[in-house]
């Protein structure tokens, strides 16, 4: 029996048939604004809030203050409390990029992993992480090593990935083959805003529902609608909520 880690994101765990495989690394791809960072925040927050699992949040995109505001703005009110209690540890932009010495930050991270007991990790984003390597071969080698190191430290990881196209078949990067799972977040503009969708394209060792499901980002974070009847895919009808 494969052990699973629940995301606690409504609808998503059902689509995943219970959750994400423990000690795996899942890539969350999408274009800017698709909700990748929100999914990362929610995964870490729920870990502490619902499952008593400590988490590490690594971000090249934001500083700790922005992250806190982002979390609180979607209703994760205890974010700061959990950070202060040490249940959530944030390595923010300033920490990771201090004095251009990413190597030192990486050592700090490895020390933290060796000393403390975390179960969840988010890397926002893989796109930035890969900039520290010189060519495709190096990126590939070191992403695999990094994934190994995370698994060995007992972590179940989400990595976000910038994706240009709405439908990704035009530019599937190598990283999609290297990770254990792939979730795509899609958005299409409508008259009244955007329609959002989540697509779990691949999960190693797992029988998942690979249909594309509608989702919403609201107070409380992301909700994925497992039953399409709850929500119109076409966007022509009113949402039932």
């Amino acid at each position, binding site marked *: 029996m494969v052990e699973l880690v629940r995301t606690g994101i409504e609808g998503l765990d059902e689509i995943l048939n219970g959750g994400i495989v423990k000690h795996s690394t899942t890539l969350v791809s999408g274009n800017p604004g698709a909700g990748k960072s929100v999914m990362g925040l929610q995964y870490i927050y729920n870990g502490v809030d619902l499952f008593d699992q400590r988490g590490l949040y690594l971000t090249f995109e934001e500083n700790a203050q922005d992250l806190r505001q982002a979390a609180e703005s979607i209703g994760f009110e205890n974010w700061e409390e959990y950070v202060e209690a040490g249940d959530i540890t944030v390595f923010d932009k300033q920490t990771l990029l201090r004095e251009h*010495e990413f190597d030192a930050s*990486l*050592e700090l991270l490895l020390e933290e992993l060796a000393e403390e007991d975390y179960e969840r990790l988010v890397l926002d984003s893989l796109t930035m992480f890969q900039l520290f*390597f010189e060519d495709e071969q190096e990126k590939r080698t*070191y992403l695999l090593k990094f994934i190994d*190191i995370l698994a*060995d430290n007992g972590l179940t990881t989400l990595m976000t990935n910038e994706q240009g196209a709405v439908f990704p078949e035009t530019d599937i990067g190598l990283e999609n083959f290297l990770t254990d799972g792939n979730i795509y977040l899609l958005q299409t503009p409508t008259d009244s805003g955007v329609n959002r969708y989540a697509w779990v394209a691949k999960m190693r060792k797992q029988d998942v529902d690979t249909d594309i499901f509608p989702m919403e980002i609201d107070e409380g974070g992301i909700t994925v609608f497992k039953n399409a009847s709850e929500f119109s895919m076409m966007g022509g009808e009113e949402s039932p909520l």
Partner: protein
Amino acid sequence: MAGVDTIRTLGNKYSAEILSATDEAKSAQELSEELDVPIATCYRRIDELQEQDLLELHDSVLSDDRRRIKVYRRSVESVRVEFDGTPSVDIEERSEVTNTLDEAWRTLSET
């Protein structure tokens, strides 16, 4: 492939010491004090080592009295000299992030 010029540069007094000391970025002043090298010599060695791509300008940091100070870091991890045929050197460049990950990964495969 680098050759005799690199070897000559390395052979100059204090060159090897400067490379050993610049694991972390340091200024000419710091190197001069740490290694007890006259400051003018220190600058000359830094120029020579840079010319051979053995040392690199890492950053210009702001000093306490708000001046820009150049700090240097070695760009190589090791140099191997081959004497077969014309002398030639094989330079192993430094890539810190990959080194750190390699090391962490190695320890994990040992356990």
